[in-house]
């Protein structure tokens, strides 16, 4: 809570809920939760990520794609057909409502890489998929893959989040984990691709804040092949986390120590082992340090991570009830869907809160 929130009566909103037992529930409650924070958004972006929503195609990558026109669609489908086996394709079901206008064409493909092409590429399957996503997003004009994970999907649009949820009929999806975002863009355009969540493979990020280090982070990530195409700072957080966790093999805790690194002053007071580790992370991954105010919720296959910037310039609350865990910018958003949630907790700046599915839950 500093400049952004004082100067400006609003700010983005984030929310998430997960059953640690992997029990599935509909997307209806996450819409109710984010809707409480309506006034933190201004109608220029809303979105959701749902995990466990495609059990019948759980072994296939689900590409969600925006097209500005049918030419883009044709080009993109040609590309996908060349490199992937498409087991199912359809329009993403939507409901026409007056609050959501200027919708692009929104299509969904369940795909698996063609074995011969994958072998020839000599890449891991995940790297192969990521490269395809970047290729389409940078080279095919008017086509954006905004969701590319397995058994998960991102649904986003320009509008208030509760309207976006109704537009995508989120109540018809059953998942074990959902994240949500209401957007109040301050520095960048409000357009469909720029709505949150930002996703790559099964990793998704919703973010409230503004990254002062965006350009430094972007340049660093572009050296590793991540192309920032969506004109919004949050995109780079997704790529940083993919880079740190998947490519570099860091744990989420360690990754949090990179992007919201403790101050040197704080590191100096740590016990030796921890001090050495934090010093190492700050030195090696200095280009991945994110400065400026942020509160983010990271969705991944096995759970959720909530993280604030180290100065805690944005709000974040965690609570629980039985196997359900809730995260939101405001406690009221949790109370709206779970009146008697307990263990309300406000994470410290830079303190990651990681919620995982229980062991053995698939």
């Amino acid at each position, binding site marked *: 809570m500093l400049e952004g929130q004082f100067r400006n009566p609003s700010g983005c909103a984030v929310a998430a809920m997960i059953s640690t037992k992997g029990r599935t529930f509909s997307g209806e409650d996450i819409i109710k939760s984010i809707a409480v*924070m309506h006034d933190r958004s201004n109608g220029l972006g809303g979105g959701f990520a749902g995990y466990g929503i495609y059990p019948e195609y759980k072994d296939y990558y689900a590409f969600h794609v925006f097209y500005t026109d049918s030419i883009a669609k044709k080009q993109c489908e040609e590309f996908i057909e060349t490199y992937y086996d498409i087991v199912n394709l359809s329009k993403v079901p939507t409901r026409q409502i007056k609050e959501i206008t200027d919708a692009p064409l929104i299509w969904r493909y369940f795909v698996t890489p063609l074995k011969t092409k994958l072998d020839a590429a000599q890449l891991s399957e995940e790297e192969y998929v990521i490269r395809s996503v970047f290729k389409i997003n940078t080279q095919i004009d008017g086509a954006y893959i905004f969701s590319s994970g397995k058994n998960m999907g991102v649904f986003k649009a320009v509008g208030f989040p509760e309207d976006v949820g109704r537009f995508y009929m989120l109540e018809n999806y059953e998942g074990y984990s959902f994240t949500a975002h209401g957007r109040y863009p301050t520095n960048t355009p409000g357009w469909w691709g720029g709505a949150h969540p930002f996703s790559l493979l099964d990793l998704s990020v919703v973010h409230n804040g503004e990254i002062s280090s965006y350009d430094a982070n972007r340049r660093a990530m572009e050296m590793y092949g991540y192309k920032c195409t969506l004109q919004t700072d949050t995109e780079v957080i997704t790529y940083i986390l993919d880079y740190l966790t998947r490519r570099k093999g860091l744990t989420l805790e360690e990754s949090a120590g990179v992007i919201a690194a403790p101050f040197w002053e704080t590191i100096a007071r740590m016990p030796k082992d921890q001090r050495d580790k934090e010093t190492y992370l700050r030195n090696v991954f200095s280009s991945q340090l994110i400065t400026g105010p942020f509160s983010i919720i990271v969705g991944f296959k096995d759970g959720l991570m909530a993280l604030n910037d180290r100065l*805690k310039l944005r709000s974040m*609350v965690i609570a629980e009830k039985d196997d359900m865990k809730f995260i939101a910018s*405001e406690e009221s958003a949790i109370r709206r869907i779970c009146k008697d949630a307990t263990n309300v907790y406000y994470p410290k700046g830079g303190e990651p809160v990681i919620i995982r599915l229980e062991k053995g839950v698939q």
Partner: protein
Amino acid sequence: MVTIDCLDKDYKEVCDLVRSSQDSDIKLKNVVGQRYIAAGIGGKNIKIEGVPGNALGAYMDGSNIEVMASVQDAVGDTMNEGKIIVHGSSGDATGYAMRGGKIYINGDAGYRTGIHMKAYKEKFPVIIIGGKVGSFLGEYMAGGILVVLNLAGNKDIVGNFTGVGMHGGKIFLRAKEITSPLPPQVKCEDASEEDLKELETYLVEYAKDFNLNEKNIMDEHFFVLKPNSANPYKRLYTAN
């Protein structure tokens, strides 16, 4: 007392109903995140059930609020007069730039509690937190009293950067020792008898509000934090 059901009402509707109420005693039930409740107003006694939204009692000018649950961010922002009692905890920036009145929290408070608090003539703001607080407690504080009681006995009563840039007022910490680092701009001493006497008046009231035993609260060591007169920042401020 008039009761207003806030379920499915947006903040504007709730605030208008509070403002225009002929009855000065108001109960708000099913509150869920409505902002700016009682902002800028005086003369009302408001009881709140549910979690109110940000900026509860901002610029408030003499009303009394009692919240049975927790509150969110920026409670009593730039409040001028009145009192806010919270039975749960409080979010970030509690009592930001507060210049008068009282905020009593039963539980914890978040980051930046009482930053930019100030006092002037008869205006003297007081914030008492029953639990612990986050970093930046009383940053740039210029007047009034901030008290952290840590009744649950947590190890770290405050976070980092307590009282950074402080140049007036007092921060009381109820603890045997302070484990968090304090910046050079504040001077930390054992509270003197005079300090404790000043504090006691407020703690008696606090204990009564939350039905606590006042003796148990006072019966512990208190530190007092004041601006360091050898403060290297001193020259940054105009002498007056």
